[in-house]
């Protein structure tokens, strides 16, 4: 068994990723795509932003190039750089440049994590110019109609230091994501993992309990993703309380007192 090797711009999603639409986000995204507008996805972690992007990439049948931003991400990391090969320098495109060339979807995940000077390189791409200046080559890359730029950020734990600048955010069509309603979330868990409906709805109830704790000791409540993890463990014969402890409580916090409290909540429920 070997892993498939793909160039980022060849990464097409072949099978439909499961995505349950909450509102009209799919229609809005498709309209923005046709109108060549960039899109900003807002929402807490694990509520389905990335899954939504995969689903969109599948619907549009375009390659999806995802960049997870971090605080050392420089402009060259996105655009490209010269490398040395056998005594000569060769240019290598960064993921953003290759997405533009290939006419794919470039998804910059957690954009606020990137350095401030990095964020401005996407500005000319994100307004009606739709060009990517490649300074070191002295070139301008004009984006084809198929190209699409999407970024995501989590307004929940933004700090003063990591805010999205107005000049950046005002270039985007924004879609807000949140955890789905109880009924829908239960269905998502059932579909994703094949767990029975009763346990799934208990998991959702448990998630609501942890979300109640947001702000009084927890930074964030349990996300849908964590619920899916826990449900997967349960379907593999892990007891629900243990699954909640390992897949949810431990993932949420390191605080011992809080861990005990969350465990007490899950043992009360199952």
């Amino acid at each position, binding site marked *: 068994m070997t892993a498939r090797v793909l160039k980022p711009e060849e990464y097409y999603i072949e099978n439909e990723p499961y995505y349950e639409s909450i509102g009209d986000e799919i229609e809005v995204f498709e309209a923005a795509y046709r109108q060549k507008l960039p899109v900003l996805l807002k929402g807490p972690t694990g509520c389905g932003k990335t899954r939504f992007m995969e689903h969109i990439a599948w619907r549009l049948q375009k390659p999806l190039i995802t960049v997870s931003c971090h605080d050392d991400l420089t402009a060259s990391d996105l655009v490209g750089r010269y490398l040395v090969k056998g005594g000569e320098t060769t240019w290598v495109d960064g993921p953003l440049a290759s997405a533009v060339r290939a006419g794919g979807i470039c998804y910059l995940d957690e954009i606020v994590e990137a350095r401030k000077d990095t964020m401005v390189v996407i500005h000319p791409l994100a307004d009606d110019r739709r060009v990517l200046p490649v300074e070191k080559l002295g070139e301008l890359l004009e984006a084809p109609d198929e190209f699409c730029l999407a970024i995501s950020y989590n307004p929940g734990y933004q700090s003063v230091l990591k805010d999205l600048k107005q000049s950046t955010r005002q270039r985007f069509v924004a879609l807000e994501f949140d955890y789905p309603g109880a009924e829908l979330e239960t269905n998502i868990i059932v579909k994703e993992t094949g767990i029975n409906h009763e346990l799934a709805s208990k998991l*959702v109830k448990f998630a609501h309990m942890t979300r109640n704790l947001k702000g009084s000791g927890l930074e964030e409540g349990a996300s849908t993703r964590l619920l899916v993890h826990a449900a997967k463990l349960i379907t593999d014969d892990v007891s629900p309380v243990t699954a909640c402890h390992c897949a949810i409580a431990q993932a949420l916090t390191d605080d011992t007192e809080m861990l005990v409290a969350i465990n007490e909540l899950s043992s009360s429920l*199952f």
Partner: protein
Amino acid sequence: MAARPPLTALEIEQQLDSLLDVEFSFLKTAAPAAILAGLERQEQDYIITWVQRVASTNIQLAYQFITHAVDALDSMDKRIIEAWALHAMDTYDQTGLYKALEVIRTVRNFVQLSHERNAGAVFEEQVGVLGHFAHGLSGRKLKLAEAEITYTDTETIYLPPLLAHLPTPDQNFLLYKALVALLWAQTRFGTFRIKLSDQLQQQPEPENFLALFQSLETLRLEACLERELPGLFRDMQTLKTSLAQNNLPAAYQSLAKRLAQADTTAEDVLQLTCEQFGKLQPLPPLCYQPSLQIEEVEACMAKRIEMEKIRVRVNLAKILEEMQKENRAFEQQEHKFDIKKIPDPTTPDGFQIELTLDDQPIAPPEEVKVLSNSIIQDLGDIPDEYLVPAGEGEYDPRVFEDKQQDPDDVWTGTYHEEGAFLYKEWDYRRQHYRKNWCAVREVNITPVYDDFVDSTLHKYSGLVKHLRKTFEAMRDEDRLLKRQVYGDGVDIDALVEALADAHDGSEMSDRLFTRMHRVERNIAVVFMVDMSGSTKGWINEAERESLVLLSETLETLGDRYAIYGFSGLARKRCEIYRIKEFDEPYNEEIKARISGIQPKDYTRMGFAVRHLSHILNEVEARTRILITLSDGKPDDYDSYRGDYGIEDTRRALLEARREGIHPYCITIDREARDYLPHMYGPAAYTVIDEVRQLPLKVSDIYRRLTT
């Protein structure tokens, strides 16, 4: 080591006499000493240490402690004796000697049936977990507090300081948990939606009636918990079994089935109680059956209901106002808010509300959502009169806004703690905290607009220039790092060298790139300035000058900083003076405040460290520093002097350090070398011998600290 011989009765008596000041208090220590003499040395020492700790609070209390402790020793675990003694001392702190003596005397109640059952759960140890547990359950956020009886006033859950009904600590913890859940269920499943006080007034035997109501209501709530928290319900069954409380009398069996139906309300229970009263005897209370304090509940609810109604109406008025701002035409028409119920099986009432304006759903603001949940919890519905937006000026905003009390007001009135931050204080003799001991208030400083700042800058103009230069060099900057393994550009020098190396056969370096590296200073610092009376004169001036120079340099540096003064006059009057808060820019106002720093009262330090650590912790920064400018050791009007003050300050600094704050002290007290290493640690202080040098040194020290 050989076991030490036990002390004789005489020796013990002598020790106790000196601890209890017998010369003046005329207490009789012979009897307890005689009993103590029969114990192992280790146990003797243990008791005597505790007598000493209690005696530091009150001698009478200590005397009562020893007379009761000797009886309790064989029946109680040491952990419980400690909890009991600490609870007595806390009671003394809060309500005085009389109540504290009561706690000591009722030791038998303190641990009900304490024989064998010395494995209790202590509230203080469990409150963290239980608090989170209560928050996690849905609905209004409930606080936890300690009280002798278990009940809730619908906002706070009161729990006993210790539970020891069951053989193991785990089971007793479970009992706490069950109590919390049942009290939560009372507020969540509408026990208080009926007005019990009216009903009780009509009854000839209100107590029996209430007891029957509680027996039946508990059955209903148990069924609610079974549906809501089945895991806990199972645990509650085992609790009942182990206390042999699980046998429901036959007369109750069929009633229990009726009460277990999902749509049973407290109203039905009340009706049933009326029907059965006189025919049915109330059940003996279950282990986790809380008591009902009807008066407190109704007072608390009446206040909240009124307040929430105002808040909702004011919020609706705000929504309307915003709509009108956006759309002029809006003003002309009549508008009607409405509430629609949307079925939602996850809530206990089976529905959620949707707010509509002229039949158009609108997204309610977060506050309205919280309010309407709380209202539904109280009333089961949102009455129509809540949906009329408040008219202009209908309510005085002071009534409903969160009260930010003017700290000066508090002191013009009676002697109380309202509106103050309460902080604990470490009592080293007791080896424990005194809870909610210091009443701390933030006070504004009266700005003095004079030429102090300008003249200081003039006086030190040479130094200021120098400081600016040195500090500018420390600022955030991008540095181009050469010869990196990975980077944005090619380092041509390195490449040429590497190629040359390759040509004559040596190994070629892979460090061929340049990279921009951002040096980020992410520092937040609080300056804690001693404003005690002893700083009067030179020291005060030196402090103010130092602050001016510091502010100038920190402005060039761009570090976030705040300046607070502190001073205290006994524990109830601890004051923090706001000189510059983190989000305030350095401007004329701040300069005038620095100029307005005046010597006040005494040097109580622990509360200042605790309060400022708290402020510092709310700021996002990689490095947090707390710098104290002081002129002497901690000292206050009441007992806060000598070791007590030093130990409390040390404890507060330890707490700060545990939270990731770096404390540092700059002092001009020459004797400081005796106590500062103990308080701040060996490398976290500077003693300045000459007052006049303070302004010159402070910026320099800051530079050293942060590079």
